[in-house]
């Protein structure tokens, strides 16, 4: 079964850090540069992200995530640099096209926001198991229904992808074209997706009955299959991260008031 989660346990310290600590890190590393507003803050945040990823031996896999959104960053540079409304000072020219400084600076800022966000999220995504996140949410007072939804998505999708392959093969074998012109590909979409969707919706009925029979709706206290192994310094780290957000917010407020 193919899994859609990118989590791999590579045995480094980063995998044992509590998911909430990583969430606090994401919050801090996105909000602090936003509040400080300087490009250097973004640069520092990106360097910090990369250092954490290197020490967690996950940089190579994070790179794959970044490359994925590289095209949008390139188009932002092209469109901003060429056509931005505030463009006055020419920066450089490639043949007849002139890139402007103001637009490029804006693009640099947007690009830094995107890369920082992708890197910081990849720390969580690559090193935390989705089921663990769901378990921990439930243990900290969220509804068991929520953690069921999260955990269930990860078991439902591989199952649906299996159905999707079966149906694609079946439709192809009876001669349906799935390649070629746009109109042809559009036409192929309906006979492919309808059976997958209908099957999975019909399955929900049985799943609902099965869950109900096993006491899904019960109000009693639940026990857990696997306890979370505590990692040293989680609490201290979370407090430091949240304090850094508060400090940045205070700095911003002070600079507005003065």
């Amino acid at each position, binding site marked *: 079964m193919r899994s*859609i*989660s*990118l989590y791999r346990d590579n045995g480094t310290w980063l995998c044992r850090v509590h998911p909430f600590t990583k969430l606090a890190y994401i919050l801090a590393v996105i909000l602090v540069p936003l509040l400080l507003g300087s490009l250097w803050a973004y640069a520092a945040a990106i360097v910090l992200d990369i250092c954490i990823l290197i020490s967690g031996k996950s940089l190579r896999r994070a790179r794959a*995530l970044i490359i994925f*959104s590289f095209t*949008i960053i390139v*188009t*932002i540079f*092209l*469109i*901003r640099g*060429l*056509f931005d*409304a505030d463009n006055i000072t020419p920066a450089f020219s490639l043949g007849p096209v002139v890139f402007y400084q103001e637009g490029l600076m*804006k*693009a640099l800022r*947007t690009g830094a*926001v*995107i890369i920082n*966000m*992708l890197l910081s*999220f*990849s720390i*969580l*995504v*690559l090193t935390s198991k*989705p089921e663990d*996140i769901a378990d921990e949410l439930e243990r900290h007072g969220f509804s068991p*229904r929520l953690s*069921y*939804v*999260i955990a269930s*998505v990860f078991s*439902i*999708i591989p199952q*649906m*992808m299996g159905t*999707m392959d079966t149906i694609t093969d079946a439709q192809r074998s009876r001669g349906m074209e*799935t390649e070629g012109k*746009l109109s042809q*590909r*559009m036409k192929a*979409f*309906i006979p492919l*997706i*309808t059976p*997958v*969707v*209908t099957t*999975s*919706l*019909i399955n*929900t*009925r049985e*799943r*609902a009955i099965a*869950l*109900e029979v096993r006491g*899904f*709706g019960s109000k009693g206290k639940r026990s857990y299959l696997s306890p979370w192994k505590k990692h040293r310094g989680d609490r201290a780290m979370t407090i430091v991260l949240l304090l850094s957000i508060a400090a940045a917010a205070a700095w911003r407020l002070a600079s507005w008031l003065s």
Partner: protein
Amino acid sequence: MTGKSIFRTKFDVASIVLIPACIGINYIGKLFASALKLPLWLDSIGTCIGACLGGPIIGGICGAANNLIYGLTTGDSITLIYALTSLFIGFFVGIMARAGFMKTFPKAIITSLVAGAVAIIISTPLNIIFWGGQTGNVWGDAVFAASQAASLPLWLSSLFDEIIVDVPDKIITLILVFVILKALPDKLTALYDAADEVERLD
């Protein structure tokens, strides 16, 4: 149907089970769209089905949970921001469906225009705040570049960008949802019918 029953939601096991199935359908829609190289997203089919079956509240939960789960676990953190858009699409499609606007094909088209309008209204400011107005879709961004080159204001170019991308996407999504809902057996849709009443024979 009275105004109150539009928002009536059953939070029973069937509705909770519907949410991950709809999130899965969103994913499959996106997967098929990219496998067939269609220039559309088609990633809100599940949200709309959830909204039509479970009502506006379930629709909204499907939408928001969809983007939050994918954003936090598959590394596609850009989708996180659009959780707000998905939430409102699910919510408004749910209202339209409960108001009877998914019963016939022309009415489903009206619902799709509402969904498109909701997507545009919520996404455009998000696009401007986070990406300087672009959507990341090739066709939409070409329009964006052209209208920026014609020195139109940023919000207007971004609005055009969104319209080009989201309106056709939502129309096709809701046509698909309409076709799929018609094909579902009654014993399934009856599970989610909020207007049903238990008859007692004694």
